[in-house]
């Protein structure tokens, strides 16, 4: 079994600036989300409806995917199917080359992060430029995103100013760490990219089966620039993003902004259906991406992870994420949703992530599509593998607990053996593996008289 998470978490816990940045940022979004979700009387009904729509999509996925393909084609889009990351990247690179381009501008997209499109393009001698402010910061820093929605959440503005000064060639020499000044510097930098790009790459928040339309929800307007200015548009869309009807957006557009940024409404929502002559890109491609999703779909308990709309509310409330940040998870999807999605998308990998949770349930409480994350975590833990030592301990404990007489004898033995510590009331240090506990907490000592003794005494 992998021990990557506990190790990486330990490193992250040793970085006080990171912890303070994370606690500050997640705390602020958390409070905003609670406020705006509380404004809607029918919040719980919206959540239930969204969960039902997503469950319906999962039941009818093949049918809806074909309906989407048919309608998108009829509207002038070219639809490609990609079994995995490599296939999706090959298709995207080929389209870019055929358009006579050697660079693309990008809308923030988790699907392209997942398939590592930027890295693939670089290997092919193509350049992919992120245009979302936070993604730009992360790309300039040659770092990886640490949050689904706020990829640069691990940086504060002073650190961002340093990144711009050192790595953005056209950064003004007198750049301050004022957020407006930082945004203006990025805006001027990006404007040149938008004006010269021939090809854009996006993901999509929703894909509407009945019309073949795609929907992108964003805050900065960089997405709108990418989606309208270049001649060629390539959208990489996970097949779970389908919604049956345009009207379903009514539900999701109330849930998504409130759950993600804590806003009632996001600033920019772009909807496009195929290609329209004289209006936006005329060479429109959609890559429908599987990359492990059909495998997840086959698992009746685990498939609810495919309902995720990437709002990241679960990250912001997670006490584990708040302390470790996203990098510790070692996957593009961090936090509670990553802990159930990563091991399912890549079976056999990330098998320590289902344990990166105290099962406190805060994630389930806020999830706008009601993914029962604790349930799936436990479900994945049941698939193992479990270490031999642990299996032995768990098996022995079960054998004792399954036999009341043996259990009572074990408790008597524990009371007897712990006598030397009873005076103090607790044990300060135990040998391994008990040291895992006593590293930071004292251990209680069994009492002289158990409840059972007391009960027997009283019955006499």
């Amino acid at each position: 079994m992998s021990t990557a998470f506990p190790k990486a978490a330990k490193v992250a816990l040793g970085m006080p600036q990171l912890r303070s940045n994370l606690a500050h940022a997640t705390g602020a979004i958390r409070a905003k989300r609670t406020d705006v979700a509380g404004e809607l009387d029918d919040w719980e009904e919206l959540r239930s409806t969204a969960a039902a729509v997503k469950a319906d999509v999962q039941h009818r996925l093949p049918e809806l995917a074909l309906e989407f393909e048919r309608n998108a084609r009829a509207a002038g889009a070219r639809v490609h199917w990609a079994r995995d990351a490599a296939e999706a990247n090959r298709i995207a690179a080929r389209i870019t080359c055929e358009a006579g381009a050697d660079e693309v501008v990008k809308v923030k997209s988790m699907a392209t992060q997942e398939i590592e499109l930027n890295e693939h393009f670089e290997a092919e001698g193509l350049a992919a430029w992120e245009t979302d402010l936070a993604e730009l910061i992360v790309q300039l820093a040659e770092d990886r995103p640490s949050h689904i929605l706020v990829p640069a959440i691990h940086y504060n503005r002073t650190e961002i100013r340093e990144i711009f000064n050192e790595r953005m060639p056209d950064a003004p020499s007198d750049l301050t760490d004022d957020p407006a000044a930082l945004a203006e510097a990025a805006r001027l930098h990006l404007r040149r990219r938008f004006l010269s790009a021939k090809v854009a790459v996006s993901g999509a928040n929703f894909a509407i089966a009945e019309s073949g339309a795609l929907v992108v929800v964003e805050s900065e307007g960089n997405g709108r620039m990418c989606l309208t200015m270049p001649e060629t548009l390539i959208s990489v869309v996970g097949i779970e993003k389908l919604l049956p009807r345009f009207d379903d957006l009514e539900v999701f557009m109330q849930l998504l902004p409130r759950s993600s940024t804590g806003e009632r409404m996001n600033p920019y929502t772009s909807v496009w259906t195929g290609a329209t002559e004289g209006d936006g890109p005329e060479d429109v491609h959609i890559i429908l991406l599987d990359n492990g999703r059909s495998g997840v779909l086959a698992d009746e308990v685990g498939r609810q992870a495919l309902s995720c709309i990437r709002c990241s509310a679960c990250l912001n409330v997670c006490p584990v994420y708040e302390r470790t940040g996203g990098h510790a998870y070692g996957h593009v999807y961090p936090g509670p949703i990553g802990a159930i999605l990563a091991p399912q998308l890549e079976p056999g990998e990330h098998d320590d992530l289902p344990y990166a949770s105290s099962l406190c349930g805060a994630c389930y409480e806020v999830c706008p599509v009601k993914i029962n994350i604790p349930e799936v975590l436990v479900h994945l833990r049941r698939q193992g593998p479990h270490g031999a030592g642990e299996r032995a301990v768990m098996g022995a404990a079960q054998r004792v607990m399954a036999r009341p007489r043996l259990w009572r004898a074990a408790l008597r033995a524990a009371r007897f053996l712990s006598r030397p510590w009873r005076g103090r009331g607790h044990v300060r240090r135990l040998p391994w593996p008990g040291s895992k506990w006593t590293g930071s907490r004292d251990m209680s000592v069994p009492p002289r008289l158990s409840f059972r003794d007391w009960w027997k005494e009283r019955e006499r």
Partner: protein
Amino acid sequence: MNRIGLFITCVNDALYPETPKAVVTVLERLGYEVDFPQAQTCCGQMHANSGYRDHATGLARGFERAFGEYEAIVTPSGSCAAMARDQYPDLIGGGIGARVYELSEFLIDQAGVDDVGARFPHTVTYHPTCHGTRALGLGDKPLRLLRAVGGIELIDLPEPDQCCGFGGTFALKNAEVSSAMLDDKCRNAAGTGAEYLAAADNSCLSHIGGGLSRAARASRGVPKPIHYAEILASAP
């Protein structure tokens, strides 16, 4: 439903006898007859949540054997009650899970009592444990019972809904993260200046108490952990 099966939980069986004694005191004070089935051991939560489904199923069957005859089974643990109610239907079927009540649920919903006639002239801060609050939906039931206690002064715990970091085997498998969560819980608890930190689960209290007792060696005025049932049992 005057006869109640008391499920004390394995943690209390091994370490904390005062809590189930307190439950007996409170229930008898209200006129209930309390039985303690000797064959009880563990609800199976540790095995179930660590991924050992078959082991958990065996323990759930044992629970059913010990408590099958009771209409109401009361336990002073939010997480064990949640285990029985949420996971037993899947593990062993049948309706026994639905007959398991956490103490405050039983007192408020079944017995219809807020005031159990206790007196506890101390300052207390209350930590709502995760499984009790979220999985079981206890809401503020334990707090409602505490508010009715004579002489008590309740002090709000900052960031109450933040997990203490226990999480069963999580405390061992991800000991560093768990400890970081514990540090924050202990700091918030100590900041209240309360004499006691109360909660509805001794497994969480074992964790928080283990952190607080360490903190108590460094500074004075750190709250002592206490199960809220023990407050309810204090003499009027």
